[in-house]
């Protein structure tokens, strides 16, 4: 097990009376991707803003490379790269100049900057656009440039905030490849995304937060198993026994009975599935492994109830 390059303990942040992040722990190791997930309003953005150093935590400590962020701020900020969700490219400059000007915001200065910029342009397939304005870039290439810019100073930790939002499937896959490559280079990556397949495929570990608290943390399949169980059954809208099945499952203690476009979706254990089959043998339903979509739906419903 490699040492965590980023570690946060007991992070807490409140705005007024509202606790947005509540004693949250997280860590990210070199060469791994930590997927930070949670429904809207779960506290992801505030957590990231504390980790970037935009806002100070009310309680808790952040360490980069084993050193306290609050006491080694400049050094720590030299270690991190941030690719925010919003397009914050500098459209007054060309593609290559975006990398050069961004590097000027770091000390010690980036060694062999010209070489570094050429290397990134090549790696991110941006060389043909080096002297063009970013205005000519497609959405996928804008995202490439944002990511390239965030690592121009050779950071140790990279924050990717919804890096594929708004991209077409092909561009998404390209970004996945780039992320995978950066992980292989030894970067510790903190990834937030609303695409569940992306989180499952890219993350070595997932941290699911809900109402500012750590709901579950671990390898993707373990996270899903621990919250949802073994299977998800999907009862179609046209199934006459649909309501009876829902009621029966609720009686057996199923908390996460969700309806999606008229379909009933319920995570169940092996035992419940066996009992359901025995009780509603004539009914029609599908069974599949649970995924992060199910987890999100479950968390969102839990969130709705708690409000």
């Amino acid at each position, binding site marked *: 097990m490699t040492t965590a390059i980023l570690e946060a303990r007991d992070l807490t942040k409140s705005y007024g009376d509202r606790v947005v992040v509540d004693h949250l722990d997280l860590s990210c190791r070199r060469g791994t991707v930590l997927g930070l997930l949670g429904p809207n309003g779960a506290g992801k953005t505030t957590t990231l*803003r504390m980790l*970037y150093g*935009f*806002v*100070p935590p009310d309680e808790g400590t952040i360490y980069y490379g084993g050193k306290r962020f609050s006491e080694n701020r*400049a050094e720590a*900020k*030299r270690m991190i790269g*941030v690719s*925010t969700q*919003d*397009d*914050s*490219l*500098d*459209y*007054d*400059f060309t593609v290559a100049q975006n990398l050069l*000007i*961004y590097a*000027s*915001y*770091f*000390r010690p200065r980036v060694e062999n900057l010209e070489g570094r910029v050429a290397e990134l342009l090549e790696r991110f397939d941006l060389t043909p656009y080096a002297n063009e304005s970013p205005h000519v870039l497609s959405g996928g290439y804008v995202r490439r440039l944002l990511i390239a*810019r*965030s690592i121009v*100073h050779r950071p140790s930790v990279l924050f990717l905030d919804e890096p594929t939002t708004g991209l077409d499937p092909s561009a998404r896959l390209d970004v996945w490849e780039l992320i995978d490559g950066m992980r292989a280079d030894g970067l510790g990556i903190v990834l937030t995304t609303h695409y569940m397949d992306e989180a499952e495929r890219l993350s070595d570990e997932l941290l699911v937060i809900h109402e500012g608290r750590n709901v579950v943390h671990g390898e993707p399949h373990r996270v899903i198993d621990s919250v949802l169980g073994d299977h998800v059954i999907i009862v179609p809208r046209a199934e006459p026994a649909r309501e009876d099945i829902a009621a029966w499952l609720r009686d057996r203690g199923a908390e996460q009975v969700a309806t999606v476009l008229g379909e009933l979706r319920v995570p169940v254990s092996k035992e419940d599935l066996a009992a359901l089959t025995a009780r509603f043998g004539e009914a029609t339903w599908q069974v599949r492994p649970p995924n992060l979509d199910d987890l999100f739906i479950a968390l969102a419903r839990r969130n709705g109830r708690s409000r």
Partner: protein
Amino acid sequence: MGSLTAVANWRSWAVFRRNALVYLRNWRTAVIPPAMEPVIFFLAFGIGFGGFIEDLDYRGTMINYATYVAPGLIAYTGFGTPYYEALYSAYVRMFYQKTWDGILATQVELPSVVWGEILWGAVRGMVNISIVAVVITVFDLLGVVDVKLEFLVFMPMLGFVAGCAFASFALIFTATVPAIDHMNYPVFLIGWPVSLVSNTFFPVEPQSAALRALMQLNPVYQLAECARGLLVLGNPGSHLLGLLGSTALFLVPCTLLSVRLTRRRVLGD
């Protein structure tokens, strides 16, 4: 990083450098219009309007109206350039272009972003005052105005000092207006009145002692009188001290407030 000491930090100058590089890329459009404005003002006020006005007594020296207006144009430019740069251009960088978001994701801290904008606004003021100085020189050689040309070289420096105060003041509005349309308030309710009632284009001599004292705190007035004293008499009198004092009086609280308000707006803290 302290909100005031950040001025000396490399980060502030990195932000300044970024703005300067953009300016240099667009130097034609950045230089020609500001050069035209004082020419138009000179033609309209100095020659056109001035033709109807008799010579004025300025601290015991009779001068024509165009000569009176020339230092006023220095003050007007020294105020307007950093003020509007820090209002509009900074707002565009903050809100529309999200340039500050990108910068803040680096080692640059928020006080340095604010200082980078203050310094850049003040240097823009210096550049435009230099252009006005060239225009004044031309009119002096044509005999339209009669100023001590050797003192023109000090005008950009005076403009830089006062420009820091004007830019820091403007950034308070940049950090607070909900949308760019709301810039009309600081432009029309503050910018225009202040630039007109500060002895720029006509002398203002209020009867009330309180108003006269208030004028002493106005850096635009101090800049106009300091420039006029130097260009007409070769002596700024007490206005050099007045300029430094009123600038400090504006700059310190306005910078502290700008940093605080910008932090709340941009970082949500």
